[in-house]
């Protein structure tokens, strides 16, 4: 088959694609993905430093390295940073870079909206963190329970920074949600039916549905909070009849789906990595997909298991307890399907694979302690104790972050064209596993010994001293492991081995492309005949019937193909700037907020009339 010449538009030329301005105005999903990744990893460092400060303070009883109020700020900002500014955007980095490549598309459905999501996320993250320089960082917890967040009990600007910053991040996430669902549903290559989509793409789809349905609820919760604080309403003021419990309902209606927003991308990555390095297809892919969907659905019906201690009454406790146990079933299914995937395979222990295997092992611990909390009598002990801290760190570090690391080692060669160093990678893996177990396992014991979470200090004599010291040592081990990762990343970027197009013998469409892929991704739209299109091309179909013949038919190709690519635009960034000015403006003067709103409107109009 003679390859036709590819003609790209003038704005895709080499010189137009270099320099900082080209990054600021880019609408290329791959560049946006890289920017998401770089920002997320920078915030990872910030959140990590906060974690180290927390662990240093708690290393021994009765320490006062940081004050009580600043400690509460550290706890709040550590969680906010790691959830909204690290795990979510790092997942978004992979959504952006990989989803179009995996479904055989040239870009996402709305490239400029995609740029808008990124800039809004970045401005929102910087805005929340700027609170450190403006008097007070938020200190009421990442869950911001009313009425501690009221102006009476949190008079500083911290809570305003937090509420308005989260609104901004919500706008970014929602825009990305609409964009990616449209992309995944609408822009699949010919032949890629829903059930032939890679599992990572499926999990992305589920996550985006969770985003668009859950974020509006925290939006409302935060609007009511901001109205209380800025305009003197009484939504959460019990003295005037307001109910602090309303906040908890709205927050956890968002907050529990958020947990799956954090973990499902990692599950998707693991479902891609395990089959490739075991050289087998994913065992029971439909089961894995449907269990992901089920987790997403049931995830909306379990929020009150975060509220067993609030006294909702036995009926609600029973219902939410049973629903929570129900959600353990699809999660268990996934674990066993992954085990069956590697069973009977031919396993290559690359770093990406090690992290995926580590995910199975560590996530199981977090999942099982989650089953314990599903039982309210036990939860009444665990709630707000260090046992819960142990639980969700096994889910989020042992689960989400190990999964994301696996993704980094797996796709780094595709993104940069260079392999990451495997020896450093293995050191990184083992130091992570050791570090995370030394840090978080003793926290189970602390919880059983009755240590509550979010305490800035504690007394000796409760049996907590040893385990706290242990956790602090572990935290510094984790810091070293992260340092090793960053060294590896930079070293490999500078002089890593050339990767070639398909270093891992991959199965999905992204490995058919050059590393890094060309700006327009695909010369010709690929045609897909199974869930492993590239594998079939290399080894033949492994499904009973051979339907690869479809591709074989020769097509009459023109000598030249003109590819339409969207031109760069700075309007997305302008509109993002308007969004952050609108939200942040309320803290300065309503007039500033109005200016922000006008910027949004003017920017949107200009954007609409721009040639596509």
């Amino acid at each position, binding site marked *: 088959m003679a390859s036709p010449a590819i003609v790209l538009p003038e704005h895709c030329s080499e010189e137009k694609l270099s320099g900082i301005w080209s990054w600021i105005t880019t609408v290329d999903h791959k560049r946006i993905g890289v920017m998401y990744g770089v920002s997320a990893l920078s915030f990872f460092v910030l959140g990590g430093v906060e974690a180290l400060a927390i662990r240093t303070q708690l290393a021994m009883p009765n320490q006062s390295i940081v004050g009580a109020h600043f400690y509460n700020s550290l706890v709040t900002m550590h969680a906010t940073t790691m959830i909204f500014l690290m795990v979510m955007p790092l997942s978004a980095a992979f959504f952006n870079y990989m989803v179009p490549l995996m479904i055989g*598309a040239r870009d996402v459905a709305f490239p400029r909206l995609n740029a808008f999501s990124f800039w809004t996320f970045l401005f929102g993250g910087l805005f929340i963190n700027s609170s450190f320089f403006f008097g007070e960082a938020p200190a009421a917890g990442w869950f911001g329970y009313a009425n501690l967040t009221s102006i009476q009990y949190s008079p500083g600007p911290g809570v305003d920074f937090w509420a308005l910053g989260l609104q901004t991040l919500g706008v970014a996430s929602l825009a990305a949600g609409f964009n990616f669902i449209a992309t995944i549903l609408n822009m699949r290559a010919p032949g890629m039916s829903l059930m032939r989509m890679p599992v990572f793409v499926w999990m992305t789809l589920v996550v985006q549905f969770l985003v668009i349905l859950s*974020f509006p609820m925290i939006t409302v919760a935060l609007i009511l909070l901001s109205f209380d604080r800025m305009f*003197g*309403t*009484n939504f959460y003021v019990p003295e005037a009849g307001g109910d602090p419990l309303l906040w908890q309902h709205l927050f956890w209606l968002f907050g529990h789906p958020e947990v799956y927003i954090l973990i499902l991308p990692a599950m998707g990555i693991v479902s891609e990595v395990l089959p490739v390095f075991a050289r087998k297809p994913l065992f029971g892919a439909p089961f894995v997909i449907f269990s992901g969907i089920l987790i997403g659905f049931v995830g909306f019906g379990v929020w009150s298991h975060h509220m067993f201690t609030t006294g909702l009454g036995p009926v609600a406790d029973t219902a939410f307890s049973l629903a929570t146990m129900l959600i353990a079933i699809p999660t268990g299914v996934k674990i066993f399907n992954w085990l069956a995937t590697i069973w009977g395979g031919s396993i290559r222990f690359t770093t990406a694979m090690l992290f995926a295997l580590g995910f199975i092992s560590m996530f199981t611990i977090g999942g099982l302690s989650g089953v314990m909390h599903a039982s309210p009598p036990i939860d009444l002990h665990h709630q707000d104790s260090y046992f819960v801290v142990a639980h969700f760190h096994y889910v989020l570090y042992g689960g989400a972050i190990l999964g994301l690391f696996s993704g980094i080692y797996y796709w780094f060669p595709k993104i940069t064209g260079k392999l990451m160093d495997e020896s450093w990678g293995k050191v990184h893996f083992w130091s992570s596993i050791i570090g995370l177990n030394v840090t978080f396992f003793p926290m189970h014991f602390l919880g059983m010994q009755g240590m509550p979470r979010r305490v800035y200090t504690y007394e000796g004599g409760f049996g907590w001293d040893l385990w706290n010291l242990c956790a602090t040592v572990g935290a510094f081990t984790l810091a070293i492991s992260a340092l090793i990762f960053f060294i590896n990343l930079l070293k490999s970027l500078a002089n890593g081995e050339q990767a070639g197009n398909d270093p891992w013998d991959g199965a999905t469409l992204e490995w058919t492309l050059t590393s890094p892929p060309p700006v327009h991704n695909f010369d010709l739209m690929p045609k897909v005949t199974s869930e492993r299109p590239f594998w079939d091309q290399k080894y033949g179909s492994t499904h009973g019937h051979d339907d690869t013949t479809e591709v074989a038919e020769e097509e009459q190709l023109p000598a030249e193909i003109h590819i339409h690519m969207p031109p760069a635009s700075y309007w997305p960034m302008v509109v993002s700037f308007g969004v952050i000015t609108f939200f942040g403006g309320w803290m300065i003067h309503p007039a500033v907020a109005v200016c922000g709103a006008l910027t949004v409107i003017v920017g949107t109009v200009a954007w609409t009339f721009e040639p596509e």
Partner: protein
Amino acid sequence: MSSDHSNVSVHEHPPPSFGVPNLKLAFWLFLASDCMLFGSLIATYLSYRGKDQLFGNGPYPLDLFSVEVTTISTFDLLMSSVTMVLAVAAIQRGNMFQTRLWLGLTALLGAIFVGFQGYEFTHFYLEGLKLQGNLFGSTFYVLTGFHGTHVTLGVVWLLLVLATTFTKHKGMVTHLNVEVAGLYWHFVDIVWIVIFTLVYLMEYTV
């Protein structure tokens, strides 16, 4: 389209795999999301409904509501849905004059609704219902205020669509734009019917 399928796939993105244009699909998703927003606001209103009797001072809903006036504004908004349907029908037929006419009329009816709301807010405020007063005031202003903001943005949007019909972008793009604006407009109407029922019509026990 299936006959020249391979050609399309060479040059451009293949046709939408889901059968709905990207913009329309994204807007349906946006509406799903907006449903959750209004759902949460309405749930807040309902959970505080009647609580103002126990805390704080009046005025209370029964002192203020004039169902007659609000019925007229509701009718006005419903009529705007009719004109919106006519606008979409007109552009499907390719009748530019009628498209502009019905779009303009829809925007006008929308603006009248916003005017009604402005009158109502002013009137209630002068009667002593403050945003910061009792829970009824807070929940009422926030819920209907958010709806009013939606209508206002809708009016701005309709006027923008109207403006695009005078530019050189015609055909498919404009058609889709009108249809999507229509989706939004009908959604805002439906939400108002829910709000009207729950806030104004459902009986308040004194």
